[in-house]
């Protein structure tokens, strides 16, 4: 609150200024006193640990950043070679197809189903899915891409329109219910 003009302050302004300065000094002294107490009583050990963590984190992140793409993808890995789902082998030296080839016997109908397509099968089998019930929602999902690992997630249900109300009963992760959707948040109390 430093006024830049050179004109002498009126008594009222001076009073206000000194009042402010006193309040400011008081606030600063409060903080200084609290910090002094915390430091003297040994309550601030976590600060050093936190600083150290941040430094280590920054250093390691920078070091690894050259050959790494943030956000998933296929980071360079040691001790096993190759990336994950993009090729190469896993930690046991195995490779896997994009769609799991394992054959499972459906618990509902007894038919053998390929693992990678088990969820969509089960959805229809149990009569839960949108597609099993109605075809209205087709158009609303047009244009959404779908990949085997990734997910065409439809938008969060509370904001969907009436045509999507059937989705409320779709349990999950099938067809348009992607495994990557964001859900609602709060500390869950059970």
């Amino acid at each position, binding site marked *: 609150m430093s006024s830049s003009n050179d004109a002498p302050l009126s008594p009222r302004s001076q009073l206000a200024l000194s009042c402010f300065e006193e309040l400011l000094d008081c606030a600063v002294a409060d903080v200084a*006193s609290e910090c002094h107490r915390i430091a003297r009583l040994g309550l601030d050990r976590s600060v050093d640990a936190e600083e150290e963590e941040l430094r280590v984190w920054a250093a390691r992140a920078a070091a690894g950043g050259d050959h790494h793409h943030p*956000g998933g993808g296929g980071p360079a890995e040691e001790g096993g070679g190759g990336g994950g789902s993009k090729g190469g082998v896993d930690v046991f030296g195995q490779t896997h197809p994009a769609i799991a080839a394992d054959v499972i016997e459906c618990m509902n109908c007894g038919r053998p189903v390929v693992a990678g397509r088990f969820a969509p099968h089960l959805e229809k089998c149990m009569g839960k899915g949108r597609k099993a019930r109605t075809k209205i929602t087709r158009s609303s999902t047009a244009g959404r891409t779908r990949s085997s690992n990734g997910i065409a997630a439809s938008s969060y249900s509370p904001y969907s329109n009436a045509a999507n109300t059937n989705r409320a009963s779709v349990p999950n992760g099938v067809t348009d219910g992607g495994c990557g959707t964001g859900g609602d948040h709060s500390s869950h109390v059970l």
Partner: protein
Amino acid sequence: MSTPSAPPPCPHLAAHRLSSRPLRFVRRCLRVRPLGRPEIRRDPRELPRCSPCAAASPSPSPRLYACLSCAAVFCPSHAASHASASGGPGHQIAVDVDRAELFCASCGDQVYDPDFDHAVFLAQSSSLLTSTSSASPSPAPRKRRRVDYRAWAPDPAEFALMSSADPTTSSSAAAPAGLRGLNNLGNTCFMNSVLQALLHAPPLRNYFLGDRHNRFLCPRRTPVRHRAAEADAAKVACLACDLDEIYSAAFSGERMPYSPAKFLYSWWQHASNLASYEQQDAHEFFISILDHIHENIKDDQHKSHVQGHGDCCIAHRVFSGILRSDVTCTSCGFTSTTFEPCMDISLDLDVGDNSPFGVANTKPHARNGERGLAGMNSKVSTLMRCLERFTRAERLDAEQKFFCEHCDERQESLKQMSIRRLPLVSCFHIKRFEHSAVKKVSRKVDHCLQFPFSLDMAPYLSSSILRSRYGNRIFPAEASDADAVSELSSEFEIFAVITHSGKLEAGHYVTYLRLNNHWYKCDDAWVTRVEEHTVRTSQAYMLFYVQKTLYYKACERAAAV
């Protein structure tokens, strides 16, 4: 952050303690205002002034001390002269008039004394207006016979025996037990990621591998017939049994990826009946299955009354903690406290909002860390800062006025959360998905989050929060809030990170597991070993920490690769 310990007194303070009246008598000179600092009592019209200063210039100095021996008031610059000029010893120790802190005029520094702090604490306690009303009945303090934790290390013979027999800590780092891929059954990566984290949560793993829930003997489980009617099947399927099967499969030694089809089927049988658990978010799924496991195997005698104690089922035993919520009236200081159990903690990601001063911020020391890393701080969010923000005192909106029983009207209030009891496994959920009901858009927050591998939760416990709310006074042990004494340690170690990559509508979940001090990436069926920096730079969505005493670190082992 341990309990405050008094540093050794300076010679002047020590002399004062011996020669003068005990410091606890200062209590009658103290006055505590609601939400304010403890200060030296004075008449309403009395204005303390430094006598030497007043003679020199009329302006009052901001910081004043009162001598404990003669009650003379002076400012810091005249403190030393008062101490030496006044006759005899005992005039060295003064008290800060506005803050009730001791000051040694000879050392020229603030000093600390347990008896004085005790007096201040008592003054504060007697002026506190608190209620013990709780939304859920506060758990009665149980007199449990405490056993001190003693560390144990094997002797050479035991070490040799263990290394030869235990596959978990064998030197073959390529195959720690329980590491196995999970097939994606069709957009089920959200399920796989959570299952991987649960598979390696030490208390949960030990429970199932220790045969505490045997799927062949479970009374709720009967063979599911084909085409069973939904209603019947829902009563029959037991998620704990299916989880037991997954544990058996993962730890069987078989390395080909496993398909958790039966688990999916069982979960659908439960979840389809409850509209609120439909979202395909990993966190939602996590909460959902814990809830269903609780429903399946809860001990019916231990119903809702002891919820939060964790005796009802393994899910609560492992994940349930207790949160404390204090709402304080800003007008009279009346505080209403409630306790609620929680299975996880959802944290806001403070994106670039590193403004340190929330209302009633009593953690100024943490800001020291920020100044040292200037450029970095504005971009990086850290887990600890998120927790700090979670436990910060927040002023509630004017619309959400709290009805103060003491004032008998609605007042503006402060709300502060803290952790009364830590769970065995702490799950932190980072709110990366923002939904705006107004704009009807959702977006994902991609901001990177730094998280430590070792976490001390002590600063976020109710005991620490309460203590700092009342000025970090040195509490004598008996006087502190008996409820807040934590029975378990507050140190945690990370063991699993679930990350989300991609956009909100087209994304993928992956779990990173820490086993034998190596990190493994579990991307559905693909399990690969990764370096630390990969984990550090990933976008953490859910973080799983286990109590340090339950975490077996193999890093000290010479044989570890």
